[in-house]
């Protein structure tokens, strides 16, 4: 299968120079810097984009505030109907948007399609949720009083997304924020602005046809000098959802925290797979290889460590190396379905990868496979690497860090499974984790209070990827935020407790007498 990228760009409305600011129904010809987006696949420029100025940012904020006053009054199921139609529009453009995700970000086409499917799935979820936004009725201690809790729209939600899931994370946040009655301002990654522009164009028609107020769904492509700390400290934005590194998250938490704003932080991971002597090794290897090399190791949930019991260590090691030998033959253009692993996002990520390969050896580790940068025909962009397997100790400095590239560390444990769990938990991050075992005691211990300390703890399911039905996020340096399914919608809303006195008396709570 050959994908003609020019046809894809044309269908998505991407031109040589694109506007980068939209309020949902209008696009603005801004005077900010003109930047370009290049493909990590071949290094070629895809298109240029006009960035926002501070004035543009101000204009969008004001329109968003005005739109919120109207949007919050639209019944939630009607807001859900708009999200349903957005889901349909995404279905209609799934192939093209998936291809652009692949071309601009570098993930294989199947994963590009999978990313758009996530957008569709969260739209479906949000449509259902729009009829389920609920509160609770409680028993009042006072006669002829009613006590209840309800959820109200919150306001303007700022969304900062990262290059590795350039559009899905926007959808996770936006679909829920929209049905909650909020309006959104999206700052996409500077590495993947065109997928954001394409997404905004896809939803444009839905918004216009349904007379959605201008300012509900906003996009602002801007440099951090225009939309950085000022965005975080802006009191007009009650909630900021940021996906990125722990370093960025700490900055966000500090600035937003100073004004007591709310955040959803989805930050770095250092995800481990535990393989016990009771594991289905074949299943464990198949799952783990996807976790380590899928998206070229550039998922927040990519598997970074494999903690293996000493009795099955050599078997797992040999199987992993054999699997990598096969994978190494399938590194190449991610738009070609014959390949399974695409490029890293840029030269800096390649350098981070090679630095990690060097550093693990300096600390005493041993490279079992890969670690090279590929050169020659098909690899001219310089962004393709051979995924690396290294033997290491959990306490190594490089193992404690997250390297956003396909390098995985094999770590041996002995004795009880609790030893493996302790190793797994002994890193600063706490996003995703899993155990491969057919032993019910080991499995239950892993998900018990003394088990994994991560936001995601799976049994016989790898660390990488997640269904939209569950809440997504992690603990410790991962930031503590939750997005997507379950009751994540609540953070996009303002919780309110109300007491109504429908009687003729005025009893005070706790039986207090206050006669005057």
């Amino acid at each position: 299968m050959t994908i003609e990228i020019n046809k894809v760009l044309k269908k998505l409305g991407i031109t040589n120079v694109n506007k980068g600011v939209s309020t949902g129904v209008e696009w603005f010809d801004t005077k900010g810097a003109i930047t370009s987006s290049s493909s990590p696949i071949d290094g070629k420029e895809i298109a240029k984009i006009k960035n926002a100025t501070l004035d543009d940012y101000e204009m969008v904020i004001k329109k968003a505030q005005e739109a919120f006053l109207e949007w919050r009054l639209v019944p939630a199921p009607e807001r859900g109907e708009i999200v349903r139609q957005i889901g349909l529009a995404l279905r209609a453009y799934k192939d093209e948007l998936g291809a652009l995700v692949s071309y601009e970000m570098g993930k294989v086409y199947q994963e590009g399609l999978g990313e758009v499917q996530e957008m569709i799935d969260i739209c479906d979820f949000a449509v259902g949720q729009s009829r389920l936004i609920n509160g609770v009725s409680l028993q009042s201690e006072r006669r002829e009083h009613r006590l209840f809790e309800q959820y109200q729209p919150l306001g303007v939600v700022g969304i900062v997304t990262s290059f590795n899931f350039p559009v899905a994370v926007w959808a996770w946040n936006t679909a829920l924020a929209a049905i909650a009655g909020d309006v959104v301002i999206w700052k996409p990654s500077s590495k993947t602005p065109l997928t954001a522009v394409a997404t905004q164009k896809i939803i444009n028609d839905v918004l216009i046809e349904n007379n959605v107020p201008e300012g509900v769904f906003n996009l602002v492509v801007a440099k951090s000098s225009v939309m950085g700390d000022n965005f975080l400290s802006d009191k007009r934005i009650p909630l900021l959802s940021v996906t990125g590194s722990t370093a960025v998250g700490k900055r966000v938490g500090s600035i937003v925290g100073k004004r007591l704003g709310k955040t959803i932080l989805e930050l770095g991971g250092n995800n481990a797979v535990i393989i016990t002597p009771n594991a289905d090794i074949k299943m464990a290897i198949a799952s783990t290889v996807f976790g380590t090399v899928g998206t070229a190791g550039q998922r927040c949930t990519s598997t970074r460590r494999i903690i293996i019991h000493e009795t099955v260590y050599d078997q797992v090691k040999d199987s992993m190396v054999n699997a990598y030998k096969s994978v190494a033959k399938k590194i190449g253009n991610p738009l070609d379905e014959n390949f399974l692993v695409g490029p890293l996002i840029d030269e800096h990520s390649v350098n981070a990868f090679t630095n990690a390969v060097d550093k693990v050896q300096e600390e005493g580790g041993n490279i079992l496979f890969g670690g090279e940068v590929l050169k020659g025909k098909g690899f001219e962009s310089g962004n393709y690497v051979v995924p690396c397997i290294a033997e290491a100790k959990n306490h190594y400095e490089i193992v404690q860090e997250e390297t956003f590239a396909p390098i995985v560390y094999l770590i041996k444990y002995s004795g009880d499974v609790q030893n493996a769990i302790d190793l797994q938990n002994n890193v600063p991050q706490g996003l995703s984790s899993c155990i491969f075992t057919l032993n019910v005691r080991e499995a239950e211990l892993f998900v018990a209070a003394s088990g994994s300390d991560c936001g995601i703890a799976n049994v016989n399911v790898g660390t990488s990827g997640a269904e939209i039905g569950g809440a997504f996020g992690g603990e410790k340096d991962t930031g503590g935020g939750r997005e997507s399914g379950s009751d994540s919608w609540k953070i996009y809303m303002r919780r309110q407790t109300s007491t109504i006195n429908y009687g003729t008396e005025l009893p005070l709570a706790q039986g207090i007498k206050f006669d005057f």
Partner: protein
Amino acid sequence: MIDKTITIEDLIEDYAFSVNFLSKKGIKCIACGEPIWGTLEEACLEKNYTQKDIEAFVNELNILVKNQ
């Protein structure tokens, strides 16, 4: 011309070599594949460098720019 108020994002975009230069000083400009937020000065201060150190880094970076 680089000065200490340049954002890390602009520094990386315009002077890619500075990522390695700063990495050798223990300053990580890229995390999770994205530039960290803030200015060159802020990144240096976070690693406990003094204003004198920062001035020296800026001078060295500008010499590297000239020699490119």
